[in-house]
């Protein structure tokens, strides 16, 4: 019954898609771990083999079979943990001392790979860890946490419990969990409020007072013209006489008449529009949602001191906190305004965005800043200038394919990390602009839309007949 398998009506199939939501979306890091595999790594060999993950009962069935299975799996996990070799190499251990005034930790003898992405050095040349970096590294066993009792100058080693008691608020704890989660997955993260890091911005330094006055005037003038024109057009289009008096020679023209009624938010789409928007709208420093982290994808040539623009920016929302709520539209807009990252949608428009030429570090164009720093350091090593090119292959495409990509990807975006009873999930929220894209179908007079199909069929038929001929030949 081939018909059952290949329904022609898409909506039919869509219905079935819903029924058979499969586990496709679940990937490895979401699956629960199978500890029976890890058992093999443990020092003492386990005698019994643990059954693999099996069927799960959804209701109690009056027997204890499920409990037994659960017990065995859990035992496997605990046995593995109890028997595996753990610890760190003494010579690699780094001591870190907690400083309650700065709420961070100081490293007298910094060493280790983690310094590539974590820690910062102050004017006196001391290496500092952020509190969340400190807890994260202590939890991994990379640093040993200590506290110095100043008057007597005694080192007190800290336990994990001690460290957790040093968190100053639930919000800080949430932030730590999300930090640690992303960190374990290999991302590079800096807190957006972090000190001692060169600030890089997409927006050029400017005199805000000057810019805003021009911007505002320009904007109000434009919107005035826009509104007047549109409302006059509307007044006529929606009267009884419109279709009696006016002649529409194409569907497109009817759509043109229709689309002026409901205004929609215009979203900045190019670098210039983004910068103009930033001048026009002042940032609200008291906004309830602020950017908690800047996140970079895992990379080897990360420069801690001057990292450039981040790949993502993260905002945190605790679902269980009654004083917080999911952002409303105006709050979302405020977040969008405050974003300052590698606006990936600009890659779609421009052939090549060189982020060094398009961002400003300490108020100087980043490419200049980098070359200054290089001449200071007198390093003559030629470095790869732009490693972004690898990702910019499929820029070319049919206009409607491009349009579709624009609609699906949206424009400015941020990650909303949701903390729900300790479970972390991420949502990507992007600005969309359906109001500036027209998807209307323009009917052609000859019905040429069917023509390419016919061509396709011919091709297929030809191939089929070719195959038949080949078959015949082989039969012969």
């Amino acid at each position, binding site marked *: 019954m081939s018909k059952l398998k290949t329904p022609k009506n898409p909506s039919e199939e869509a219905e079935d898609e819903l029924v058979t939501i499969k586990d496709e979306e679940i990937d490895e890091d979401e699956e629960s771990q199978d500890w029976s595999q890890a058992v093999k790594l443990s020092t003492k060999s386990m005698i019994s083999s643990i059954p693999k993950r099996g069927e799960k009962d959804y209701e109690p069935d009056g027997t204890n079979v499920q409990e037994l299975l659960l017990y065995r799996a859990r035992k496997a996990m605990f046995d593995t943990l109890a028997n595996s070799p753990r610890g760190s190499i003494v010579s690699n251990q780094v001591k870190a001392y907690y400083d309650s005034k700065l709420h961070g930790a100081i490293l007298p003898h910094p060493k280790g790979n983690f310094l590539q992405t974590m820690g910062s050095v102050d004017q006196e040349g001391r290496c500092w860890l952020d509190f969340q970096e400190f807890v994260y590294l202590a939890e991994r066993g990379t640093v040993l946490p200590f506290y110095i009792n100043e008057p007597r100058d005694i080192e007190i080693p800290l336990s994990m419990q001690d460290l957790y008691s040093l968190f100053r608020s639930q919000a800080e704890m949430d932030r730590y969990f999300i930090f640690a989660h992303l960190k374990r997955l290999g991302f590079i993260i800096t807190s957006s409020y972090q000190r001692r890091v060169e600030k890089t911005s997409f927006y050029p330094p400017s005199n805000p007072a000057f810019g805003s006055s021009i911007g505002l005037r320009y904007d109000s003038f434009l919107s005035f013209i826009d509104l007047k024109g549109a409302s006059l057009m509307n007044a006529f289009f929606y009267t009884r006489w419109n279709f009696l008096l006016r002649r529409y020679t194409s569907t497109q023209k009817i759509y043109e008449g*229709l689309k002026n009624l409901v205004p929609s*938010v215009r979203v900045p789409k190019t670098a210039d529009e983004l910068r103009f928007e930033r001048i026009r709208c002042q940032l609200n420093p008291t906004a309830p949602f602020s950017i908690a982290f800047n996140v970079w994808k895992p990379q080897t040539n990360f420069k801690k001191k001057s990292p450039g623009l981040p790949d993502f920016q993260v905002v945190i929302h605790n679902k269980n906190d009654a004083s917080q709520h999911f952002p409303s539209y105006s709050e979302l807009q405020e977040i969008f305004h405050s974003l300052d990252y590698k606006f990936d949608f600009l890659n779609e428009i421009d052939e090549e965005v060189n982020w060094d030429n398009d961002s400003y570090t300490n108020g100087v164009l980043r490419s200049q800043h980098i070359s200054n720093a290089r001449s200071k350091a007198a390093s003559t090593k030629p470095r790869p200038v732009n490693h972004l090119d690898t990702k910019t292959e499929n820029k070319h495409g049919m206009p409607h394919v491009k349009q579709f990509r624009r609609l699906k990807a949206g424009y400015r975006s941020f990650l909303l990390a949701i903390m729900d009873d300790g479970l972390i999930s991420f949502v*990507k929220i992007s600005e969309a602009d359906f109001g500036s894209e*027209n998807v209307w179908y323009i*009917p052609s007079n000859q019905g040429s839309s069917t023509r390419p199909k016919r061509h396709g069929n011919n091709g297929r038929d030809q191939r089929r007949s070719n195959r038949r001929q080949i078959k015949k030949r082989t039969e012969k």
Partner: protein
Amino acid sequence: MAKGKPNGVRYRYPLPIHPIQLPILVPHNPVSCIYWAYCYVTTINRVTKIHVDITSGKYAHVLVRNAEQMMYLWENGFFGTGQLSRSEPTWIERTVTRINESMGDGSKNLALERITEKRRLQRLEFKRKRVEFEKYILDLRRQGGSIEQETEVLEKQRQALRDFKASQDKDNSEEEIILYNESESLFDDEGGVQPLEALELMPVEAIFLSFALPVLDISIKTLAGRLFDNDTLSYNTLYPLVRQYVAYHHYRSHGWCVRSGIKFGCDYLLYKRGPPFQHAQFCITVLDSEEYHDYTWYSSAARVVGGAKKTLILCYVERMASEERIVELWKNGQFADVFSSFKIGEVIYRRWVPGKNRD
């Protein structure tokens, strides 16, 4: 499919008002000019007025009963839903073929609705079988069977279920599914099938087809009077529908085919051309710009939508005029002003998986 026309021809016009065809104008030929001017004056954009019934009662239903007009609305912009069909009003056609089939006039072309029906029955049968097997295992457990025994049985059962499924896929074409007997009331006096189905328009569709495109034989004022009681009209009763309409008009006017999204737990589905051409790619949920919900609300909506491989769009509607002014405009019948005092802002909501975004 039904009319034997290719879809490109059948759904040629995306709106129920068709553009006029003017003859080719040759500027230096005076005859051509005169003929062109003549055509321009005499032809108007054809507006076929479509008759609608509005049922009274707590919820007004906007219905189109004429078979030809039902088809016209479906074929020119995919408006409305057949009350006894999935969306295209095909009930009468299906019924006639079904009756002919049962009379022995076996045509193999099954209607899409029948295919789904068949599939659902198959699934039901499969589930019944599975429940049976589960019962067997439970009995085994109660009698103290070991886990090893159990896995052995489970393996066998799985194979049996797989075989069963394969056999279902193969030899079901001949089976006849008779769900109900034909009742007398189905037929009219001459033995033909009575047209029981009507095309139901969503209120927003009815507004669009009377206010934006004058296609229905009812004016927007009359329609508004039927949808709301003018005496007790307040902003709060008015707003929910106006909000839905503003969003509907926004997407319609940019060329999307907008259909109800209730199947996927949202307000609208956006098709690029229409349901016969491709799947809907976007699901629209309309919200007020000040509105927010618990995170669970967003995530469940996104789960359903994501499960059907669509993109969830949160469409925020922002009020730009005072509430009193909007009610006043509505009462004065200045509907265009009512609708243009709202602004649309959109946001894409998508689950983000760290593991898939590492590079």
